């Protein structure tokens, strides 16, 4: 079994918020953005994380990067527990886990040239002598299919696709083990999305790195991921290999998401599972299975229990297909 690059267990992130009123009359609540999330990512593997807006995907990314403090749980890079490390202690480990953000217009400093943007991670992580850094920057540019004429360009002189390539190169230049990608192609035009996804796949093959690929687009996930986790209101409701999720999903939410995804093929406009209403919101999470308020198969029993991930199938190859549906395997 391949070594693991990231293990998270029982991650919780609660935000105290005021829902109404002021001063003495305010009503306080807890927004449970993450409520017990656990998974592992192995070397060279891509885990896709899908779910609708507000399900906690991006909070999870920030927690893994230690950009947000965690309420409870554990984050382990490789075999180092980083949950309680100080910023200073964390520094040498930053090299191993990097991130690509959704919007390259916002994630690149508009006042820095490509050369400066790519040099920044090398400098802050003290990787290599100045001359080696130049070589590394040239190599990084080459690997993303841009030539050295881009070195002195500023972000505004480039197209969206080129900017996202730079963001990819910046994340990869320190040779990380894991890259957390938060909706890396959603802000791009359709024809450019394919280019970036192909690039990410090629770089993964060449460098043997792992991705946590966060997306709401099932097509992108099928293309890039080995395993998929589906999130709903701060919890993983189903997890399995790509084939498990796309060909034999068991959770009603996964099935509904799959059927709602528009297919660019007129022969396959099948019957949709239409969900009622929209997500309850992470402040008033329904008891038991959080999905029961929208679920077409919900029964009274679904309001009981903790809504934790159950593992109904364990296969010989070590992969598991788990579902949190309280009615499994009846459904």
């Amino acid at each position: 079994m391949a070594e693991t690059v990231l293990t998270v267990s029982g991650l919780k992130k609660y935000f105290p918020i005021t829902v109404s009123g002021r001063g003495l009359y305010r009503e306080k609540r807890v927004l449970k953005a993450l409520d017990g999330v656990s998974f592992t990512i192995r070397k060279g593997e891509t885990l896709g994380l899908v779910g609708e807006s507000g399900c906690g995907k991006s909070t999870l990314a920030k927690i893994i990067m230690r950009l947000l403090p965690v309420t409870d749980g554990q984050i382990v890079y490789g075999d180092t527990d980083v949950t309680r490390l100080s910023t200073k202690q964390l520094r040498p480990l930053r090299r191993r886990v990097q991130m690509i953000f959704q919007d390259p217009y916002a994630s690149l400093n508009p006042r820095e040239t490509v050369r400066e943007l790519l040099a920044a991670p090398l400098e802050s992580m003290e990787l290599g002598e100045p001359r080696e850094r130049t070589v590394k920057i040239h190599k990084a540019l080459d690997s993303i299919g841009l030539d050295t004429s881009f070195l002195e360009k500023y972000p505004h002189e480039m197209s969206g696709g080129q900017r996202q390539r730079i963001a990819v190169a910046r994340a990869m230049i320190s040779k990380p083990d894991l890259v957390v990608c938060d909706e890396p192609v959603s802000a791009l035009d359709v024809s450019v999305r394919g280019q970036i996804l192909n690039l990410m796949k090629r770089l993964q093959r060449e460098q043997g790195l792992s991705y946590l690929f966060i997306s709401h687009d099932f097509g992108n996930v099928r293309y890039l991921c080995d395993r998929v986790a589906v999130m709903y209101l701060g919890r993983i409701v189903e997890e399995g290999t790509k084939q498990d999720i796309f060909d034999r999903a068991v959770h009603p939410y996964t099935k509904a998401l799959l059927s709602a995804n528009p297919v660019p093929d007129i022969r396959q406009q099948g019957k949709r599972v239409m969900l009622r209403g929209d997500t309850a919101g992470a402040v008033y999470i329904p008891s038991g299975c959080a999905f029961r308020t929208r679920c077409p198969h919900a029964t009274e029993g679904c309001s009981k229990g903790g809504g934790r991930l159950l593992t109904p199938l364990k296969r010989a190859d070590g992969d598991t297909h788990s579902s949190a549906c309280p009615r499994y395997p009846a459904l």
Partner: protein
Amino acid sequence: MPETLLEVRNLTVNLKLGNRQDVTAVDGVSFSLKRGETLGIVGESGCGKTLTASAVIGLLPPYTGYIAGGEILFEGEDLTKKTARQMRAVRGAKISMIFQDPMSSLNPVYRIGTQMREALRVHRDVTAKEAREISAEMLRKVGIPLPETRLREYPHQLSGGQRQRVMIAMSLLSNPSLLIADEPTSSLDVTIQAQILDLIRALRDEMGMSVMLITHDMGVVAGNADKVMVMYAGKVVEYGTVEEIFTNPLHPYTQRLIGSIPRLDMDVEYLSTIEGMVPPLGQMPKGCRFCARCPLHTGACQEQPPPPFRIGEHVTFCRRANPDFRPPP
């Protein structure tokens, strides 16, 4: 045979750019739309799809956008000849539009009911009580529970999907014959997107209106349009029924646009991509505009704009689509 509701002929939209020369953003676009039909307009950002729709409803960006040529025949009348005052009688009454982001198209400081009443009173003489009843009825029609309560609420109290439903309800108050939906679901989650698209389709059938559905998503078009118009760099590159476009796409751009979308039902090693970029406005090549990114281009493509190639109603602007075409040796 249903009658033609809208016929656009050779529409050209120019944009003023400060002191520089005006650029042509929509160049000679022609299409027609029958009653009760949905036309999907697809293309990437900057291809002119939104400007085309804005020209039809008379909402081109003020002081910058203007119609430089062509005709927009709506119910037999040429909208390009109408004055601003005359257009106000058409806009909102016979042609309505919904936008991508419902939060920025609703006014955050007025209650839903107030905004709906205002929309209603522009075109019809109704009392406040009647307005409330009509609005509540319309909200119920678009699937909003407890419409009377919702009328007293503000936009921020509704979810994204509910806001888009309110927008749709508002746009349908005057029973329009054409609804322009500009990326109506792009800011919504997939499960909500499916609900909204279903709603638009059901209302179209119920009220017998026509829909112009503008989107960049080939999947949305495949499931919801009758006719499809693919635009690239301000020009129409292909037009046909949804069956023709998806089973027999003739233009290399359409083919690659469909091919570059990752599939849910099969694994692919690498996606087909369209290398390069759209030529910037004002620097359009004199020949085919897709030429620089097209793997099939020949010398003739660079020199002359492509002539239309027709099979029945299916039209494409590509030399290579014509089986009689022989590249010069």
